[in-house]
């Protein structure tokens, strides 16, 4: 299966090329601001682990895709590399080249020292309209990095470099564009101008955060093609951030799938597409709309959306949405609330009122952790236990029940205990690493 256009100036296989960026155990935690009294008493109110132990290696000329939904931490990871998000831990070793002092750890740099390095790492954002100053014409905008980094004052040189960059990105004849303003250009043309500005300083690494998601389908292919051309001509290395595995397929050598701040699967692109191992990767692939009605149709989509990172699920973060989740994945009391709410979207108003009457406000379950108590409003009636039996009978295949270790019925309600959660870690399977209990020999015997 061809996954990307084969254009590379470096004939060496990827594994033998020099390392440009080595990210180890990168963490970005944001402290939560608690209530007034918490702050008065100096109590900590926890933190949001936007990026929680991310590691990957990027070699020269490689394209890595960080793929995940909103809230997966992919953009924060990219921003942290550029010093645009506060790094709480880990290391980011970057080979800045001989003239800038060789290999440096970006996390150890002071703002002043970082500034000189920024010319080697450039960023392209999702919204080309927001990344261009509406009051600056294209010539000024594209020449701006030269001014900021005080590269040269020579007007002729600046003009020549602007022309060269604009020609490279296909904004030609250049004279027609030099004095246009962003508002005069289409979305694709604006993104070309942004790319021209990004290559002005001769960067080594280009971080592209969803560079084509806001563009029309027919323009996406053009911009991706242009980025591959620039990579070949200028020897660039890309970190491509996206939620779309379809565009990543053409673009990336390596794919890292992120979920709630962690990498859940990482490996060579062709292997990820041919044999996705993590259920989340499979869901992302299944969700891509296929322009062929013969192949379209009902698919097994995960329910819900990315949970709140301030209060991540126990065990594997994906377990509440995972169609293949089982015992050790981290089932907890909250999942019972979700299960009941899910049930109530499919029943009649009367049945809902009646069942709600049995258990009262279901959010009361929210704080119970590994033990859930489903109260019986009318003590001793056994109605809560009967309701649970009903729920289970309606969908016996529901993964939730695999996480229940014991259920005891008492007069005040039902006490449900869950299995001890186990955090999945990245385990190596050939060239791919995956963090999922389904691929952990402790829980599942590998298929013969």
């Amino acid at each position, binding site marked *: 299966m*061809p996954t990307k256009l084969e254009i590379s100036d470096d004939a060496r296989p990827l594994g033998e090329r020099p390392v440009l960026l080595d990210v180890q155990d990168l963490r970005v935690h944001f402290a939560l601001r608690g209530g007034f009294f918490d702050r008065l008493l100096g109590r900590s109110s926890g933190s949001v682990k936007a990026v929680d132990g991310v590691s990957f290696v990027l070699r020269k000329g490689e394209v890595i895709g960080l793929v995940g939904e909103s809230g997966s931490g992919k953009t924060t990871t990219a921003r942290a590399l550029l010093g645009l998000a506060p790094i709480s831990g880990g290391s980011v070793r970057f080979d800045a080249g001989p003239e800038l002092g060789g290999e440096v750890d970006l996390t150890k740099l002071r703002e002043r020292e970082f500034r000189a390095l920024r010319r080697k790492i450039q960023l392209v954002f999702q919204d080309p309209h927001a990344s261009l100053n509406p009051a600056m014409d294209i010539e000024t905008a594209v020449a701006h990095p030269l001014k900021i980094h005080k590269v040269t004052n020579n007007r002729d040189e600046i003009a020549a470099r602007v022309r060269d960059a604009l020609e490279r990105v296909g904004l*030609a004849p250049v004279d027609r564009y030099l004095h246009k303003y962003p508002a005069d250009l289409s979305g694709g043309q604006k993104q070309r101008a942004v790319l021209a500005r990004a290559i002005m300083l001769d960067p080594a690494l280009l971080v592209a955060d969803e560079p084509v998601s806001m563009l029309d389908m027919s323009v996406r292919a053009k911009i991706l093609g242009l980025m591959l051309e620039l990579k070949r001509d200028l020897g660039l290395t890309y970190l491509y951030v996206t939620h779309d595995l379809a565009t990543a397929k053409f673009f990336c050598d390596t794919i890292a799938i992120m979920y709630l701040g962690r990498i859940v699967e990482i490996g060579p692109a062709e292997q990820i597409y041919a044999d996705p191992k993590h259920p989340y990767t499979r869901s992302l692939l299944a969700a891509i709309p296929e322009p062929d009605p013969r192949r379209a149709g009902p698919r097994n989509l995960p329910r819900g959306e990315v949970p709140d990172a301030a209060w991540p699920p126990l065990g594997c973060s994906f377990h509440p949405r995972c169609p293949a989740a089982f015992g050790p994945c981290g089932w907890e009391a909250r999942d019972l609330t979700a299960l009941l709410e899910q049930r109530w979207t499919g029943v009649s*108003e009367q049945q809902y009122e009646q069942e709600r009457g049995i258990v009262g406000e279901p959010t009361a379950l929210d704080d119970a952790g590994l033990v859930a108590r489903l109260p019986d409003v009318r003590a001793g009636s056994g109605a809560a236990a009967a309701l649970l039996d009903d729920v289970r009978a309606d969908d016996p295949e529901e993964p939730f029940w695999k996480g229940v270790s014991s259920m005891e019925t008492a007069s005040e309600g039902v006490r449900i205990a869950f299995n001890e959660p186990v955090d999945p870690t990245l385990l190596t399977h050939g060239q791919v690493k995956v963090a999922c209990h389904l691929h952990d020999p402790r829980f599942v015997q590998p298929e013969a």
Partner: protein
Amino acid sequence: MNIEPVISVRDLRVWYGTERGPVRAVDGVSFDVRPGETLGLVGESGCGKSTLGRGVLGLLPTGSAADGSVRFKDRELVGMRQQEMRTMLGAEMGLIFQEPMTRLNPLMRISEHFAETLRAHEPGISGKEIDVRSIDTLRRMGIPPTRYRHYPHEFSGGMRQRIMIALALVLRPAFVVADEPTTALDVLVEAQILSILHDLKRNFDTALLLITHNLGIVAEACERVAVMYAGRIVEVGGARRVFSEPAHPYTRELLRSTISLSTTALHYIPGAPPDLVEPPSGCRFHPRCPDAMQVCPRIDPVEVRTSTGERVECWLHGPAELIPPGGTAPLQRQELASADEA
């Protein structure tokens, strides 16, 4: 298909006035949508899709004018007085917007949004009735009744779009326009919303006009598809047929440039949609068309109909008797000025 269409558009034209002259954003468009049917409207940005969607509902900005005919349940909407139109919007015709985040009032509970909507159109409605109908609609969109009195910020982006769809449907409109309803959403949530739209006809019997630039979305959610280019619908037909054997070269090129998992090479249409102040002569796609013939820039293409009610506007499909001698010879294509590249 003998079912009477809910909405019948005939030769609709919409202009905007600009300094350089009128922009003919919609230029002679005709289509029908039947109850429970989803018609996908596709094309690149700047082809007039959104203008058409809003024009059908009479929601055009000042400085624009419309002409032609839009018949909805035996009433003519073009030229209808604002006041009369307003009573129909929402109640009988709805609109689902692109960005769910910006359309809900952050200070109002979800229940209050529904109460406001229902009271505006059915003044005497009781509180109990509001709750029953709203919760029922929300439930069909997969929003649990326990969340009925929450505020918008307590919901995720996908949930908010479901709430917007529920708000549009709670009045049971017969016709709904959805303008890029999933563009701001992630792939997984997009797929969830698409399956909801796909189920609309089963649950509500609503006729839906789904506007999108992504052909994959049309394949998932629509029975029929209309392809729009430079203000005109150039091909209409059943989604299965259009996707497997596109009749118009634009449809074919649009399909090839859609990036999906089965794509094996990056492909794109050179150039960009034309400036609608001065569109190209003849067939408006001819400067970008790989199959252009001598006749294409000279004579406007004629609509060709098949027995099944499908239509295409392209000289490749004739009618042969209208093509002048030598007209089918290939057109020497001018080098596209790369300045026109999008």
